[in-house]
């Protein structure tokens, strides 16, 4: 979604003015824009009457929040313990090889962002890969190539 002052203000003002909503407001921004735009951080600081630095501290502390825009498709590779011992690191290497980016990065064409997460609660299907909220269980390096190919060709199924 396009970042504009009006829709940032609208988002912020849907909460009452209290520090306790700071995290929730930033999470809403994250959901709407896939990152926390700078304008958003500044506007929120103004609304709550707190320094930008205190919100910046939160935005960098909480892993759910990102300060840089994400790619069109987000690939999350679960590296929880169950996935780890069932070969998650091989998948992580695989995604790195396929896309040429490391976890936390976005491809230069803006098509993919790659993240590792610490457990999605789907341990029984380890190792798990999530592409744009579609879950793939028991992923092998072989399957992985196919999944990425499908996404390239027109989004996750």
């Amino acid at each position, binding site marked *: 979604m396009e970042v504009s002052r009006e829709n940032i203000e609208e988002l912020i003002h849907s909460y009452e003015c209290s520090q306790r909503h700071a995290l929730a407001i930033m999470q809403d921004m994250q959901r709407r824009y896939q990152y926390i735009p*700078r304008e958003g*951080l500044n506007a929120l600081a103004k609304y709550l009457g*707190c*320094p*930008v*630095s*205190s919100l*910046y*501290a939160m935005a*960098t*502390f909480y892993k759910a929040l990102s*300060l840089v825009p994400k790619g069109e498709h987000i690939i999350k590779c679960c590296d929880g313990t169950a996935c780890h011992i069932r070969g998650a690191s091989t998948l992580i290497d695989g995604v790195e090889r396929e896309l040429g980016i490391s976890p936390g990065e976005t491809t230069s064409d803006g098509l993919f962002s790659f993240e590792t997460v610490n457990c999605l609660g789907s341990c029984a299907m380890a190792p798990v890969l999530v592409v744009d909220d579609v879950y793939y269980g028991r992923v092998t390096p072989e399957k992985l190539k196919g999944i990425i190919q499908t996404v390239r060709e027109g989004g996750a199924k």
Partner: protein
Amino acid sequence: MTEFQPDNQIQIEINGRACTCTKGEFLLEAARRNGFYIPTLCHHPGIAEQGCCRVCLAEVVENERSKIVVSCVYPVEKPCKVYTDSERVKEDRKVVLMLLALRAPESTEIQALCRQYGVMDGSRFKPIEGEKCIMCGLCARACASLGTGAISTVLRGTSKKISTPYDEPSDVCVGCLSCTRVCPVDAIPYTEDETKRSIWGREFPLVHCQECGAVIGTREEIALAAGKSGEEVQDLCPECRKKKMSDVMAHTYGTE
């Protein structure tokens, strides 16, 4: 004045000597008041609940159970025996000092502590080159309460650092040096000459006293202080201001 009532007093023993402290008083203060020095880095009397450098460890024995506590945040609630220099304390402190020395190899304060209290051999590890900061975060808290909240802790875990938002020159910093004054290891660099002060990537013009020419502070810092107190922007140093005040008084009441 409730804290001076006798029932708020607790008898404790520090390193074998009987001492008195107030219920709820932090152990570090109780010990120091009674003449036992416990080393610290991140403790600052004006900034509560730090407790992060972990240099001020002490051993407390309560009901025959011994535990290691962090004395700057440990409130003494019941009679106990305290050891500020037991073997257990020394062993742990040596490890903590090794970790700090590897973290901030450039800090002379830490080197001094290591010499005085002993340090574990850290030659197995690669120190963080050029680092001085021990990540206690006092600067950020001082800035939030005395300054403008220009800096904060950023990130978490082993990547944690102190910085301005987006690592850019801060647009709210007033160059008041509150951060540098509380820093226990002199880790925040700044420069100053006759006319300007540079810190956190910005330059601040210095204002001089109209009378004696001494530096009063940065223009931004003086404006902030005036804003907070509701007074006019000062152009005199505290000394000259006092002198001017007494001159006015003398003139008004005619004691000359």
